[in-house]
């Protein structure tokens, strides 16, 4: 097998390389400080994106968390209160002020929340509670204890009345409104974007491509506040004149405007998916006598389904979290119905409209963060599905072929 090194070639003069001083010492790894530092910094910074995601998770949830901790505490306190009552009834009470307070509570027991409030004071000198929940408790206790208790209870109702004597935080209407508007905008944007992508990927000549693609990029660059302004000032009136509905700003107008914002995302990803379909598919289909449009619809479009699915998912994510258009063009009334021509209030718009006016640490504040957490989880999951499920599908298809 091995070729022995050949008989040394005999020509050539004698050289004395071995006696030369060593110019290149390769035997020892040199420590190069600039390279070392650069590599460490670059690797460190690269983790920033992951860190930010983790931090967003942590901090958005942290501000939403007090709602749950309070409800837990309420449960705990009620049971302990009972126990203490029993003690106080049967044994001699040593802690006089505590007893007094308790009696006071009993006297005016009309409002159950007051019991909690009294107990809260008591726990500070009798039982020890974890610092964290304690702090959260005292902070929110100061700003309206009524809210805390009712917050959780009202969360799954349809009344969103955060600023009133009896605030209610029913987010159902907001969720329904968000889904309604998402559906409307998708019904508008998805067909247009997908068909236009199909045109660009399959039918268009070079020149048309060079017009359409930059236009889409420019549309993607339109600030949503500009689209919102356009919807509010121009589109709303225009559409009302056509359809003759009652409220000028409603989920229909908002949905169309958000659809405009979602078109570039759906278009771009769909077009990528369509152009990624191997050329051989196309040629094979034409070769068996299918026409261009048949090939486009029955060969290329199906082959790109996972990509189109991803495009729609990310379009949903875009509309779902869109704030400015929702604030400006939907009417912002938290109504719960399925009529496309009534005003709605979306989750994101609620945060946008109310966060600037709430008291930090208030229940209202926490509920808004809770809504934010929902939005975040929703978009995170959507993105994860688009990423992993769709990629897996594509991989399977490629390997299957």
């Amino acid at each position, binding site marked *: 097998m091995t*070729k022995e090194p050949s008989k040394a070639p005999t020509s050539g003069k*004698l*050289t004395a*390389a*071995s006696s030369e001083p060593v110019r290149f010492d*390769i035997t020892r790894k040199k420590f190069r400080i600039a390279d070392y530092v650069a590599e460490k910094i670059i690797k460190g910074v690269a983790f920033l994106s992951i860190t930010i995601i983790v931090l967003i998770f942590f901090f958005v949830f942290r501000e939403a968390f007090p709602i749950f901790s309070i409800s837990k505490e309420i449960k705990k306190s009620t049971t302990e209160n009972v126990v203490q009552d029993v003690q106080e009834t049967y044994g001699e009470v040593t802690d006089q002020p505590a007893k007094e307070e308790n009696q006071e509570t009993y006297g005016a027991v009309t409002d159950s929340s007051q019991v909690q409030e009294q107990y809260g004071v008591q726990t500070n000198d009798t039982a020890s509670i974890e610092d964290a929940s304690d702090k959260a408790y005292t902070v929110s206790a100061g700003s309206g204890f009524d809210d805390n208790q009712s917050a959780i209870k009202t969360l799954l109702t349809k009344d969103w009345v955060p600023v009133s004597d009896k605030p209610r935080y029913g987010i159902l209407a907001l969720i329904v409104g968000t889904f309604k508007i998402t559906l409307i905008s998708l019904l508008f944007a998805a067909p247009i974007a997908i068909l236009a992508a199909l045109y660009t990927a399959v039918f268009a000549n070079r020149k048309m491509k060079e017009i359409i693609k930059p236009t889409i990029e420019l549309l993607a660059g339109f600030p949503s506040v500009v689209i919102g302004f356009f919807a509010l000032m121009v589109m709303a009136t225009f559409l009302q004149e056509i359809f003759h509905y009652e409220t000028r700003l409603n989920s229909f107008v908002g949905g169309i405007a958000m659809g405009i914002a979602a078109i570039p995302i759906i278009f771009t990803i769909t077009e990528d998916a369509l152009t990624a379909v191997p050329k051989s598919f196309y040629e094979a289909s034409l070769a068996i006598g299918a026409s261009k449009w048949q090939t486009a619809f029955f060969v290329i479009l199906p082959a790109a389904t996972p990509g189109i699915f991803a495009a729609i998912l990310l379009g949903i994510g875009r509309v779902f979290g869109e704030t400015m258009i929702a604030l400006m063009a939907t009417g912002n009334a938290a109504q719960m119905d399925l009529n496309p021509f009534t005003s709605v209030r979306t989750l994101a718009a609620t945060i946008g409209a109310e966060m600037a006016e709430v008291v930090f640490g208030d229940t209202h504040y926490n509920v808004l963060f809770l809504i934010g957490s929902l939005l975040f989880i929703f978009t995170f999951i959507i993105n994860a599905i688009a990423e992993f499920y769709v990629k897996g599908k594509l991989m399977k298809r490629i390997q299957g072929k």
Partner: protein
Amino acid sequence: MIVDKINTEDMFLYYSSKMALNNISIKIPEKKVTAFIGPSGCGKSTFLRSLNRMNDLIDGVKIEGKVIIDNINIYDKNIDVVTLRKKVGMVFQKSNPFAKSIYENVAYGPKINGIKDKSQLDEIVEMALKNAAIWDEVKDRLGDSALGLSGGQQQRLCIARTLAVNPEIVLMDEPASALDPLSTAKIEELIVQLKENYTIVIVTHNMQQAARISDNTAFFYLGELIEYDRTKKIFTNPDKKQTEDYITGRFG
């Protein structure tokens, strides 16, 4: 007596799990031109690139055995690869000047070696360009972009860039394959001159070229070193039938 500059012993190279070089043992003499020939995909370029560890850049490459240069196995654990590549320079198949001026291209190597003195740099650049036989063509436009040069000039500039680091060994991976005959002739002439001072290892698929410029020739086939001898012998009276078949153009 001939000094062996490079000496590989029982060297194997794998891409992932696929064997690309099978048990290569060869002794390459100092200040000679050694040519590697063979059909494409035979492993000659891969082997060349393992002489200055450029294969390290490719994921999944594993090397067994020894590659000894000046009595040091360059695959030892403590080898400083950066210094090794200064000692063993390389010219690539496709000329690849940086998008900088002609001067900056040649001065790149000395500069990263810490030479800052302008007059010293000027001197090195001039020497390198002269050694690469391109000085007369570019001396009046050193500040122009290197990308404006012709293909042959670019390749000689790349040689000059390699020489400016003052290596001991210059590896050339089909340096003239993309050039016209006139440029090729210039490069060949240059290579013959360079062996005065440098050990040259050249990969070529052009057998006439190997016959014209090299002192020794190694024939590779399917990842194996089939035959290695003086060029004259390889081309006139090879020992192995495979070599003879290839030389006479029966395959490849």
